[in-house]
């Protein structure tokens, strides 16, 4: 039943498992769906969706799958009462009402709405023609027409597809850009505890000691365990070129989040201008006085540092590919930037590139040529919560 819906949800990136699907089937068998699409919508959402960040995706998928399905709940209770009576005494009022209501298809409706908007100059409530509240005109709100267009107001007969179509949870989508707390939450995932298998047992395991001692009739019996510490060291490299200035707020949020995440064993931050060369900088202004030999960094930071590069990757092709192609701010480079990009990549085992440009635009944006060259070297992620999550997962697993 609805198995296509299950696959549609998975296709839209919702991690619905078979277990949850079985629970849903179980719930439907118990009559929790109350044979109405709205109840079914809330039932599905409660059982299948486990974070408000996915509500929007779910709404879209639900609207996509169930759009166009007419449900009895779109017909008001009064009509049902008339219908119930009908067997005994056909209600004249109802038949009249029904014959007045014409059904239109959507295009026709929109055209009519435009015309009606031109014709109408004043407020109009009730009745069956003008835009207004109440009545059976196909336009307006608060009234009844099975195939009308609602204009503002609260619908009294909301159908599930409408609820889903409203997309109230758009703000929670994880691919939205985000604030510092969200970044911090993402950085928290970047941890790797030293395993309990190696290292000396130096930490007193108090609980085990108490238990052992008591079992030993009070003779002290100390139990030691290996301590667990986060061993992650992070190297952050920021592009501070002019083209990045529109993303400066986003980047500074990322920087602060990383800086305030005190669970890293070590955090090093350097800056570059469009591309790496023989020098990196300790200051975003990239002045010569703050320059540091890139080779010195490679010598002094071991390969276990996890490298996060933040940059848009767009520049003049010469800046990436030519000797001496570096922009005027940086000193003459005897080797092209791309050689340095590869060198840094080869030195460290875990590297990712975060790009503030929307992923959909990577192929079209000005400078997409260099961007795609860099993508061949570095795994690139969009600088959003989802992208950062993906990047951090990439940093945690071995190449």
């Amino acid at each position, binding site marked *: 039943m609805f198995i296509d819906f299950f696959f549609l949800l998975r296709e839209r990136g919702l991690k619905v498992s078979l277990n949850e699907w079985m629970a849903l089937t179980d*719930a439907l068998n118990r009559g929790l769906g109350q044979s109405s699409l709205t109840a079914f919508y809330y039932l599905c959402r409660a*059982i299948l969706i486990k974070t408000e960040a996915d509500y929007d995706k779910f709404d879209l998928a639900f609207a996509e799958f169930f759009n166009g399905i007419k449900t009895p709940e779109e017909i008001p209770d009064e009509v049902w009462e008339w219908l119930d009576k009908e067997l005994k005494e056909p209600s004249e009022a109802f038949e009249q009402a029904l014959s007045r209501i014409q059904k239109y298809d959507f295009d026709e409706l929109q055209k009519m709405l435009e015309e009606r908007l031109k014709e109408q100059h004043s407020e109009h409530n009730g009745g069956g023609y003008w835009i207004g509240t109440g009545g059976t005109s196909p336009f307006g709100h608060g009234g009844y027409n099975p195939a009308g267009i609602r204009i503002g107001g609260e619908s009294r007969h909301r159908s599930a597809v409408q609820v889903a179509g409203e997309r109230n949870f758009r703000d929670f989508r994880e691919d939205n850009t985000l604030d510092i707390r969200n970044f911090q939450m993402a950085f928290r995932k970047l941890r790797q505890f030293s395993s309990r298998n190696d290292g000396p047992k130096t930490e007193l395991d108090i609980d085990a000691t108490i238990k052992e001692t008591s079992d030993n009739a*009070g003779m002290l019996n100390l139990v030691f365990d290996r301590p667990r510490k986060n061993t992650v060291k992070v190297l952050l490299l920021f592009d501070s070129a002019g083209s990045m200035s529109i993303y400066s707020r986003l980047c500074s949020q990322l920087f602060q989040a990383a800086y305030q995440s005190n669970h890293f064993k070590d955090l090093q931050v350097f800056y570059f201008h469009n591309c790496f060369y023989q020098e990196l900088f300790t200051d975003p202004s990239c002045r010569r006085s703050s320059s540091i030999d890139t080779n010195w960094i490679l010598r002094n930071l071991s390969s276990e540092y996890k490298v996060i590069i933040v940059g848009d990757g767009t520049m003049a092709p010469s800046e990436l590919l030519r000797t001496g192609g570096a922009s005027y701010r940086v000193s003459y480079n005897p080797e092209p930037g791309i050689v340095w990009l590869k060198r840094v990549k080869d030195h460290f085992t875990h590297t990712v590139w975060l790009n503030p440009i929307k992923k959909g635009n990577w192929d079209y944006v000005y400078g997409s040529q260099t961007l795609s060259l860099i993508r061949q070297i570095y795994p690139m992620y969009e600088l959003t919560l989802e992208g950062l999550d993906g990047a951090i997962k990439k940093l945690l697993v071995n190449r």
Partner: protein
Amino acid sequence: MLENIKESTKYVASPELMNSVNIAMALQKPLLIKGEPGTGKTMLAEAIAESMNMELIIWNIKSTTKAQDGLYVYDAVQRLYDSQFGGEGVDDIKKYIKLGKLGEAFSRKEQVVLLIDEIDKADLEFPNDLLWELDKMEFYIPETRETVKAEKRPVVIITSNAEKELPDAFLRRCIFHFIEFPNAEKMYEIVHVHYPDIEQNLLDQAMAAFYMIRSIPDIQKKPSTSELLDWLQAMVLGGIKPERIEKDFPFIGTLLKKNQDIDAFKQSRRRGLHF
């Protein structure tokens, strides 16, 4: 099936929330509640317990809480003391086993409501350690070779402030509901439940001010329902005239708890933000 929450509980639940509660109870799965602080996540469990005439058992989770604490604690040290100083009944290990909140809920004869409050406060592994216990509603005590098993599966309500992400395996076993922040209409309803005869003029002014403050983007900790209720009470007790709200925002400290937020608020007032 719970039709609606009793009026006496002073809890206003949306139909969607009631729906989720009923689904969770029918499927006998834990209900995971998320939402902004102050949207009444904890109060929900109290309201359910009262409406259904069940006992409420609350397990408050702290950063140091371990899953084992909820099941049982074996007091080996007390037993040792007793054996050294000749206490009675040392042979009986049962005497030294104390059930935790989860164990308590499982061992009751009647069905109870179990609230696991702020589960995200605990260690990352905490929810995973409870998978079996919440699924089967039973656990084994090796010291006494006994199994504690719930005769009537308790109604389990779990709240989370989303400080940590919960593991997928745990989430799969829950029914999930996100409590939205109430809109003005719902908020009037909530306030009226708590203060039935509040002066309308004062309430209107206060509500406008409240939603205005919530809309200031620089405010980090947005005031919530419980803070609005406190604020209203403070103003009623202080005999504040409605006109004064717009002029000098009395008792602003009940709404905004952080210094930076009060500064941000004053700044936006200076910039001439009105409601």
